[in-house]
């Protein structure tokens, strides 16, 4: 089930909120747990057992860790826990990728397994791993209740597309969360805004991308429009989903970490990754980069660590070589920035923005390509090397057709709307305008959903 579906919006959500409101406090975690398992089963019933297995095994590993704390056994348990998690992820997400790569390199014909990807596996495995590691590091107290821990792993707002919520972020909320009208109000606003970002903008940008893919007459300009449209789509899609997750979390009394802070207004790639998918970036920093030594063991180790982290970041997003290359591109850019480019970027606001946007666009063309062949084709088209004309009538039509949507989307990725909203927030007229805006956005999103055919979340596949 996705948040931007009629069955979720007008079925699951109102019913789970009603159940949560009327349930006694002591029963609310049970409401959440059962609701979350139903939510997951609605999307992929056959993998509910996998989700439960991940929960039970990590809960048990953490309890065992707490009992062997300070002994050699603790480290072995930690390694076993990490291995189990990585095996699950590796088998379900990367098995066919590895087999395919081996077949390509060695010319073998090992049959692919064709295992369907469990929805949200990258998120719930990463969350479970972070919990075990945090218990090992004594940063969190292990959860004794299996039900409470499973509620954390399966918590439906963030289960399938993040943010990557660590146990420490919700520990307090799981034990004793209080909800207030202000929290509910913030949640309602945040959820509605996220829904509108996804349904009204990201889906429209997807239509433009599809028009490009299905065009009779492509052109170099059309490739650039496509690159821009996809760059906007993935931001509104993913940040919209994060907003909805955070919003539902607030309605239920949780505080989830922020995942996006206007990444396209960054002035360096380093800054971009502090603003884009923040929870994933900090996960890799805390559980891979720093344990590998970070930048404390000399330049060579530092560069190696960066390369490892960004290769893994790329592969986390998808089991294909273009994702690895996408990650590698960012790793390379970060190295270059840290070694010498960083100080130059600080000198020119305009040039640094252009630099970030250029490589972001380029990165997302690689990211969204259909394998390595598709990537080569898209990149060569982008730079006019595939014999495409500079312009075509179809390009002109779609540019005109989506011009206003593109302008709205471009303004929407900047902090400008938020600044304006903050300036107006205290004005008396907002007492009427804001509820109207929330209602209108919800109705417009509903209208698009009722009539819509395209709706998957891009981050579902991760």
């Amino acid at each position, binding site marked *: 089930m996705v948040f931007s579906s009629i069955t979720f919006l*007008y079925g699951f959500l109102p019913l789970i909120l009603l159940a949560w409101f009327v349930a006694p406090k002591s029963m609310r975690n049970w409401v959440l747990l059962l609701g979350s398992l139903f939510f997951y089963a609605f999307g992929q019933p056959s993998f509910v057992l996998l989700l439960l297995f991940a929960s039970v095994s990590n809960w048990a590993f953490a309890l065992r860790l707490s009992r062997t704390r300070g002994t050699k056994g603790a480290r072995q348990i930690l390694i076993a826990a990490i291995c189990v998690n990585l095996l699950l992820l590796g088998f379900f997400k990367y098995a066919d990728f590895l087999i395919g790569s081996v077949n390509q390199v060695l010319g073998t014909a090992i049959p692919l397994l064709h295992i369907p990807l469990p929805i949200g596996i990258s998120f719930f495995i990463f969350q479970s791993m972070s919990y075990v590691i945090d218990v090992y590091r004594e940063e969190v107290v292990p959860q004794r209740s299996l039900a409470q821990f499973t509620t954390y792993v399966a918590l439906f707002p963030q289960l399938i597309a993040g943010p990557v919520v660590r146990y420490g972020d919700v520990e307090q909320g799981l034990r004793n969360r209080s909800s207030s009208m202000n929290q509910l109000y913030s949640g309602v606003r945040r959820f509605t805004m996220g829904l509108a970002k996804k349904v009204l903008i990201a889906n429209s940008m997807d239509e433009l991308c599809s028009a490009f893919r299905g065009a009779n007459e492509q052109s170099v300009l059309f490739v650039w429009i496509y690159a821009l449209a996809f760059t906007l789509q993935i931001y509104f899609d993913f940040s919209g989903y994060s907003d909805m997750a955070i919003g539902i979390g607030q309605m239920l009394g949780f505080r989830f970490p922020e995942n996006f802070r206007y990444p396209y207004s960054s002035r360096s790639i380093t800054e971009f990754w502090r603003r884009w998918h923040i929870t994933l970036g900090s996960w890799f920093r805390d559980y891979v980069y720093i344990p590998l030594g970070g930048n404390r063991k000399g330049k060579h180790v530092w560069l190696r660590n960066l390369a490892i982290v960004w290769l893994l970041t790329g592969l986390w997003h998808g089991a294909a070589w273009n994702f690895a290359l996408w990650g590698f591109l960012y790793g390379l850019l970060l190295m270059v920035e840290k070694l010498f480019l960083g100080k130059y970027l600080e000198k020119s606001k305009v040039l640094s923005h252009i630099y970030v946007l250029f490589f972001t666009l380029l990165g997302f063309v690689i990211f969204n390509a259909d394998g390595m062949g598709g990537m080569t084709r898209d990149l060569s088209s982008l730079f006019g090397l595939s014999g495409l004309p500079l312009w075509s009538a179809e390009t002109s039509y779609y540019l005109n057709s989506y011009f206003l949507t593109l302008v709205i989307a471009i303004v929407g990725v900047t902090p400008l709307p938020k600044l304006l909203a903050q300036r107006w927030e205290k004005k008396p007229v907002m007492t009427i305008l804001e509820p109207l805006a929330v209602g209108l956005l919800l109705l417009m999103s509903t209208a698009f959903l009722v*009539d819509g055919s395209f709706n998957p979340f891009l981050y579902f596949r991760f």
Partner: protein
Amino acid sequence: MNKRKPMATIVVFFVILWGFLLGFLLLPDAALSYTERRKLEQLPKPTVESILSTEYMKSLEQYAQDQFPLREELRAMKAQLQYQVLRQGDSQGIYLANGSAIKMEATLKPEEVLFCADKINDLYETYLQDMNVYCAVIPDKNYFAAEEFRHLSFDYGRMMTLFTQRLSQVQYVDLFGCLSLSDYYLSDAHWRQEALGPVRDTLAKAMGIQDRLPDLESYTRQELYPFQGVYVGQSALPIEMDRLVYLTNPVLNQAIVQSAEQEGSLLSVYAPEKLKGMDGYDVFLHGAQAIITMENPMARTDKELILFRDSFGSSLAPLLLDAYKKVTLIDLRYVASQYLGDFVEFTDQDVLFLYSTGIVNSGRLLR
């Protein structure tokens, strides 16, 4: 802090959420969408297989979309937001030009065009040798408006070159110059029967039957209102309703109409009661029929016409009946060509292939 704003925002949100849920639960399910001309999804029955394969959940989402309260209004809201506010060029591929809703056909499918021509050639070889065989193509509305209103279209010239060069033994009659955008309904893809004078005259001249046809002005006009064409539901745009005019005369009033699918029952040339059905254009010769015949009891000739046609032919055929004893309309989308000999006796009839560009560009629809 002012508590009215948070309270009002929460109330609006939950009233919409729970209001639609209640509406959904309490309102009865509809079986059909007349504007979209399709059956609506009904509540699926769960089975272990359908749940495990998630087919049940997909059907449930489709059901929720189809049976959602105020669905038509919400679709209209979306269309207007995209088309009027965001100024998108089309809504579901349909745009408005001078009040007329037009489907943007931008992709020429040469293999489909050639398939269509080959199908006609095959029929000629199988059934129609030594008969007078004519062929004409009806341009869609996009042909007239795309360039002027800066919308996309395929290359009609290329289509017709591909098509006509592939045809053999068939006399092609060009209708592109006989029509303009105003000859079509505003809300529908089809042409208006009362505007078919030039088309009929061009065909009649090519087929040598002009002397046997009465003047179009001599027919009696019957009007039906409102006619809601196919594009109203498809696009959800605010499109003016049409006035559907059909032409009658004594020949048409006395014509004996029979459908191969309703053997034994006599039909009328026009079916005004179908105006409010799934497709208002079914008023003309009862809509989709594999084979339907019109006999002219007042005929002063033994000549017959076989019309291979799509839906456009339903409104033209009555205007040709005066020149023939019998007109047989065959829609190859609903009857396979290899079985035609079982239903139709091919002797020395005149034969006309009359297809719209939409069918020529989807030639594989012809069986």
